[in-house]
């Protein structure tokens, strides 16, 4: 190619390249505006007071639009979870209780069945908890233990554990 032709090719390439970059830069704000807005992100982290919860009691909080089960376990419930640890290899979703808790007294899980999304029962002692004393999902019969692990029924995974920080002994931060 002559020098004039190479210069022309470069010019057209530069113009075309800038056009593509410009179009991408223009498209980005349109796409990014669909990501969660600042007010949604602001409530993506919540703090919950847990000082008044007695052993054996549970409360339900809302976090990122979903229920979160916060249960203070009795020593028996902790022991039951640890017993199942011994046969962790037989579980559908192999996790030990220690992997799922920061402090053994407190089990905090997202209250959404990992099958098709119903809210399992078991927060109140009057509700069905299933044979492992954890939670029971009435929709299709998934059974969870006191660590929120799937023991029986169609759910594929243990109840999800959200990111937890103990700000103080009586205040947790979720998310």
């Amino acid at each position: 190619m002559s020098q004039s032709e190479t210069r022309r090719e470069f010019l057209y390439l530069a113009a075309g390249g800038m056009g593509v970059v410009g179009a991408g830069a223009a498209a980005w704000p349109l796409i990014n505006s669909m990501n969660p807005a600042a007010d949604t992100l602001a409530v993506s982290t919540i703090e919950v007071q847990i000082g008044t919860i007695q052993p054996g009691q549970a409360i339900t909080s809302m976090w990122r639009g979903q229920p979160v089960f916060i249960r203070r376990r009795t020593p028996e419930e902790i022991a039951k979870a640890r017993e199942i640890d011994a046969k962790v290899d037989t579980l559908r979703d192999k996790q030990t209780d220690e992997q799922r808790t920061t402090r053994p007294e407190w089990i905090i899980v997202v209250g959404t069945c990992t099958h098709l999304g119903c809210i399992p029962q078991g927060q109140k002692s009057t509700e069905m908890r299933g044979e492992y004393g954890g939670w029971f999902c009435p929709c299709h019969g998934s059974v969870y233990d006191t660590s929120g692990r799937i023991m029986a029924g169609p759910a594929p995974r243990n109840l999800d554990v959200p990111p937890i920080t103990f700000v103080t002994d009586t205040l947790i931060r979720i998310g």
Partner: protein
Amino acid sequence: MSGLHNSEFKNPVIRWVDERLPVFTMLVKEYGVFPAPRNFNYFWNFGAIALFMLVTMIASGVVLAMNYAANTAIAFDSVERIMRDVNGGWLLRYIHSNGASFFFIAVYIHMFRGLYYGSYKKPRELLWMFGVLIFLLMMATAFMGYVLPWGQMSFWGAKVITSLFSAVPLVGDSVTTWLWGGFAVDNPTLNRFFALHYLLPFVIFAVVFLHIAALHITGSNNPLGIEPKGPQDTIPFHPYYTAKDTFGLVVFIMVYCLFVFWMPDALGHPDNYTPANPMVTPPHIVPEWYFLPFYAILRAVTFDIGIPFTDVVFIEAKLGGVIAMFGSIAIMFVLPWLDTHPVRSARFRPWFRLNVFLLVIAFLALGYVGAHPPEAPYIYIGQVASIYYFAFFLVILPVLSRKEKALPLPASIADAVLGNRKVVMALLAALFMMPMATPAVAAEGTTEIKHIEWPHKAWNGTYDRAAAQRGFQVYKEVCAACHSMRLLSYRNLTGIGFSEAEVKAIAKEYMVNDIPDENGDIKERPAIPADHFKSPFANDNAAKAANNGALPPDLSLIVKAREGHEDYIYSLLTGYTEPPADFVMMPGLSYNKAFAGHQIAMPAPIASDGQVTYADGTHASIDQMAQDVAQFLAWASDPHMEERKQLGVKVMIFLAVFAGILYAVKRRVWRDLH
């Protein structure tokens, strides 16, 4: 109707599609090899620019609609949420609001081109009429779009314009009730305006398709107004006009971006940053600049039409105005039959050219009049300009069609010399000036607004965080007793330099209502950063009751919502003095030099030095506190200002480089021809 189209493309994928639907063949035919006159000037760019603006408005609009709520209770707040919380929401909103203005700028220039060069004449009459239809649809779309933010101008503009329909005899009131969906502009009106505002742009898109299709049958006009006589008079659209149009488009976008990034509210009205209040009419109801000439024509008819010296009225002034306003647009439809002179281009018709310029001046004058209150001398100027406007179409054009002796036409396009640039530039300048004709409306009497060179107003300005924090302290300790700032959340305070921990501590000082407990009782809890600023009163009525019937306005947007902006806030806070000797004060009000009418219900809020003890030790003089509050409120109205200007710099640099390269491309492409 049998089998595949015979495609000439080699690429197998393109060929497969093209055989079944010859879009690629069509593109090459209509935009590749399509013969266009070789002598287009830059006026011919504006059709493509208008199409770009239509696409920009649809793209930004669809994304805005994902966050907008068309309900009178939350519409205003949903727009502010877009401005403050949605990622890049402020940018999308300003692109859309300024995009409307620039869409009209492009279309007005495009229409001027059509008028001046006779592009409406045979065989392009239908093309012209589709264009007028597009203009009408644009006006409807823009009108409804402006109502959506549900500000004061949104509501009152909607009320005034929809009320026009009540002027129609017999059915007027029923039609107006039908339009409103009720007995006044209210929620049903807003909802249907949103639905229609979303719909019409796609109707516009369809009519644009017809407009371009009609153009491709007749071919384009050109500055000489004579038809191409052979291939020596034309050039293929690609690459000549693709290169030239892209360059012109980028220059246009640069001007557009100047507004979006540095003057995003210049073409709007501060009153629209005040939520709609059906009980309070703004002092001056003004439409957006692109409607001003037609608004002036509407208001020019101040007299009833009937039998003189009797009480017999055929057409009331109100109806007369409506007829004149719609007539001024309807008349454009029949332009091809009003001007039947055989010569197209104004270049060869000196009398026509003079009158076109007079029409432009009349149109600009009408725009100027429309922005002002309907008093002398504006009414008279408006009436004279309106008379000229109609005379141009109904009298001058038909007379010139028969009487005007045109200058001799060149033999062909290829023969002719290209035209006079200076005229073009002067006109473009005039047309760009039209949006700026909207003056800041002066308040009654003379109010004293002191001007300060706020550092954050510079093209690369940043907020003085120390001043804003002090201003926040003054707000907390003085203003918050009566004034809410409900659009701000405590977490926003990190924007003026508070740390997350400080923000949490500030929020905790306030008790807000919790969600109802199991018994349905509402208890209180300390606020968290995500909460909005707590309002001092539970609702507007409580606020009014505690303040002698006057409602202390919310301060979240006050700097944007007042003419004079920060200067006004500062001047108001420092403007309390004793009234002049002859001034009659109403009981319970205070004299203020900056307030319209000089009598304000709020007693001087910062009345003494040291009223607040600043945390950073700065001496809190009245002047200092006033400036600090003004800066805090400026930030509160526009928390993304710094990001906006910084992004603007990057965008302008990119566009300038891009424009330079495109100009080089254009010159290179056109080199063989020149």
